[in-house]
């Protein structure tokens, strides 16, 4: 069909009313709905993080009561894990890009996609309701019997909120899998898929297989708490450690829900800013699947000191070491991609360099925790806190921001201030290290996590960490301003500002409502820069 004659309507201009957004079935608009909601939750979670760092500047618990402090770190964890990190990349960037990258007009189930955003929002409302109602103090892990029989806070509300939110994750994962299987454009074979898609496919598998388990586990906690059905409470014959098994059976793979999409973004950015096919494409693709599969078999490493049998601990330790291998392979392949590339230092690439440094440290410190004898010492200390922030913040958020910068011109059709963007990436990198590196040290020295007050000998490290948090806050505030500013005053973006490969760059910026004016036909391998 001929579209050259008609003026170009893009998805942003296709309807302006509130209804055209709240009832949209367009994956791109739904991606933006998610962008707004996860950003709001991120700001809220970050405020709680700031309060934590403020309290920990002095050893005495003098800023807030311990009860309040416990609610603060619980809300920080709950919001960041369930309402920011898990949906961040898949539901925002994935939603926007999966159909574009495979040459489809939409996800397979547009209505389910919209439903998943509503489900997410309703889950969020329950959680915020709990917050307004006085908060919850169990930690984001909801360990029984504290959560089911002892805590006096709004456990049930939050548990219901996370239960509901889980279905949003399930629906998104289901939608991605079906879309990637059934909606690829002609010629888009499995090994022509961008690695972003492979990573999202692996992520979606975990969402579909893992999330139902946390859902039913939370149902059991709620049944015990509200109806006094004995399931985990030892005084009712239950086993509190069974909860931990069920919880981590989801929550460890959930870590891969958070990091795999970031790895997918990483692959796209490295390829685009080296103008080169990813080194060992197939290996990188399969390593995502390997992580998804082996990631389901390592949950017991969260329980090395939970009275687990020595032999079970050894099996989980070995598997945890093995799951490190595919991540290592990815890092090697990304680094090798730079070899003989044409490397630019555009802002998304600055995030890439930051990611490599932080993910290396985050990944390698994972070995400490897989190593049984060392884990016994650093388990439940700030060492663990530092480790998972290096992965979740240093890995996932770096790539969330890197991806947002990379695709921003595509999403909104506007260019942002490049210089500020590079500066913000550097500020975030330095601020992050200053915040979390001291936590490795104070963890090794023995400071337990979730402590409202702590012995004075740990204060130096905590002050450094709090100072870093200030810098990190500045780093995160910067993109908020210049990105929003670009929406108003930014120069219009061309269809392919980076000279990148991929179907999403072959359609105008912003894309038309149905993505492509004519269904693309794929005739070449991915990242085919050299012609």
């Amino acid at each position, binding site marked *: 069909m001929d579209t050259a004659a008609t003026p170009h309507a893009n998805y942003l201009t296709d309807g302006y009313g509130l209804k055209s957004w709240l009832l949209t079935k367009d994956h791109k608009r739904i991606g933006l709905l998610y962008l707004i909601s996860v950003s709001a939750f991120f700001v809220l979670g970050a405020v709680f993080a700031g309060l934590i760092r403020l309290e920990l500047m002095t050893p005495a618990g003098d800023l807030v009561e311990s009860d309040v402090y416990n609610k603060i770190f619980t809300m920080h964890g709950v919001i960041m894990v369930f309402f920011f990190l898990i949906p961040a990349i898949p539901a925002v960037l994935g939603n926007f890009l999966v159909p574009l990258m495979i040459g489809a007009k939409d996800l*397979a189930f*547009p209505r389910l996609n919209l439903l998943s955003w509503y489900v997410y929002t309703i889950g969020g409302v329950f959680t915020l309701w709990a917050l307004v109602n006085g908060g919850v103090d169990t930690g984001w892990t909801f360990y029984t019997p504290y959560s089911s029989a002892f805590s006096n806070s709004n456990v049930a509300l939050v548990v219901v909120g996370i239960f509901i939110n889980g279905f949003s994750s399930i629906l998104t994962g289901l939608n991605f899998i079906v879309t990637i*299987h*059934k909606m690829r454009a002609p010629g888009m074979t499995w090994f022509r898929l961008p690695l972003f898609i492979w990573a999202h496919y692996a992520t979606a598998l975990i969402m579909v297989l893992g999330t139902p*388990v946390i859902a039913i586990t939370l149902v059991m906690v709620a049944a015990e708490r509200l109806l006094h*059905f*004995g399931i985990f409470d030892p005084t009712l014959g*239950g086993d509190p450690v069974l909860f931990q098994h*069920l919880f981590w059976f989801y929550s460890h793979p959930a870590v891969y829900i958070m990091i795999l999409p970031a790895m997918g973004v990483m692959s796209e950015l490295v390829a685009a800013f080296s103008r080169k096919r990813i080194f060992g494409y197939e290996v990188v693709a399969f390593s995502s699947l390997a992580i998804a599969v082996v990631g389901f078999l390592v949950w017991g490493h969260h329980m090395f000191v939970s009275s687990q049998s020595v032999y079970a601990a050894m099996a989980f330790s070995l598997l945890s070491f093995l799951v490190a291998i595919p991540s290592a392979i990815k890092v090697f392949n990304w680094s090798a991609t730079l070899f003989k590339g044409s490397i630019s230092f555009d802002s998304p690439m600055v995030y890439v360099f930051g990611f490599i440094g932080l993910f290396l440290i985050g990944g390698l410190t994972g070995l400490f925790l897989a190593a049984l004898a060392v884990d016994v010492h650093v388990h439940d200390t700030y060492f663990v806190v530092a480790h998972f922030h290096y992965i979740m913040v240093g890995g996932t958020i770096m790539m969330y921001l890197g991806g947002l910068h990379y695709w921003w011109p595509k999403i909104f059709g506007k260019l942002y201030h490049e210089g500020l963007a590079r500066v913000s990436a550097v500020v975030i990198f330095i601020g992050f290290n200053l915040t979390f590196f001291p936590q490795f040290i104070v963890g090794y020295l023995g400071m337990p996590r979730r402590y409202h007050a702590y012995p004075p000998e740990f204060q130096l490290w905590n002050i450094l960490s709090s100072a870093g948090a200030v810098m990190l806050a500045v780093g995160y505030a910067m993109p908020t301003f210049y990105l929003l500013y670009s929406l108003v005053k930014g120069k219009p973006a061309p269809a392919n500002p980076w000279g990148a490969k991929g179907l999403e760059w072959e359609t105008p910026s912003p894309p038309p409502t149905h993505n492509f004016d004519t269904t693309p036909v794929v005739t070449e391998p991915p990242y085919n820069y050299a012609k």
Partner: protein
Amino acid sequence: MAGAHATQHPKLQHHFDNLDQQFEASALGMWLFLVTEILFFGGLFLAYLVYRIAYPEAFAEASHELDVVLGGVNTAVLIGSSLTMAMAVWSAQLGKRSGQMLFLALTIGLGLVFLGIKAVEYSHKFEHGLVPGPNFRFESARNPVPAQLFFSLYFVMTGIHALHMIVGIGIMTVLFVMAFKGRFTRAYHTPVEVSGLYWHFVDIVWIFLFPLLYLIDRHGPVGH
């Protein structure tokens, strides 16, 4: 853009190329959903397994408080409903409106019978104080604490199964209305097919629940 699909089947959504692709996507989506359901129930089955291994006698003893006859009748009812569901799908594939309506109605009816019997069983448990919680009393039990655990799992498992039945009956009711309006033809009957998958799944869950909950230690010549 709509012009591009001007000649296509009215049920074809804009983002699919053809009805086959649309059907395959829906079917794959339902199968994936059922996988999530397996893992959802899987958590309960795991908890059941752990506690049954820990307290085999108490579980057997508590299991004998359940009514095998009612449970058995319900099993037969559900298997029957799977048959009528399969017939409804078959009628849809042939585009037979009356067959669709008849078999969907039968499926709904059998589903309601199942829920009715379940309600009777639940009320017996309430009367006998076998609902876990502060009012739980099971005087004849040798070991009431784990027996209560059994009833916790019984109510959660069968309760969630019953919820799935209620959702299923809701879906069947919608399908019935659609069938009444003549929406399903030889060319297009995806909703009946994928809803059928769901119904059979819920049926299969019960096929596991029944022996696990009702039939502990009822085998063999010794019996109780």
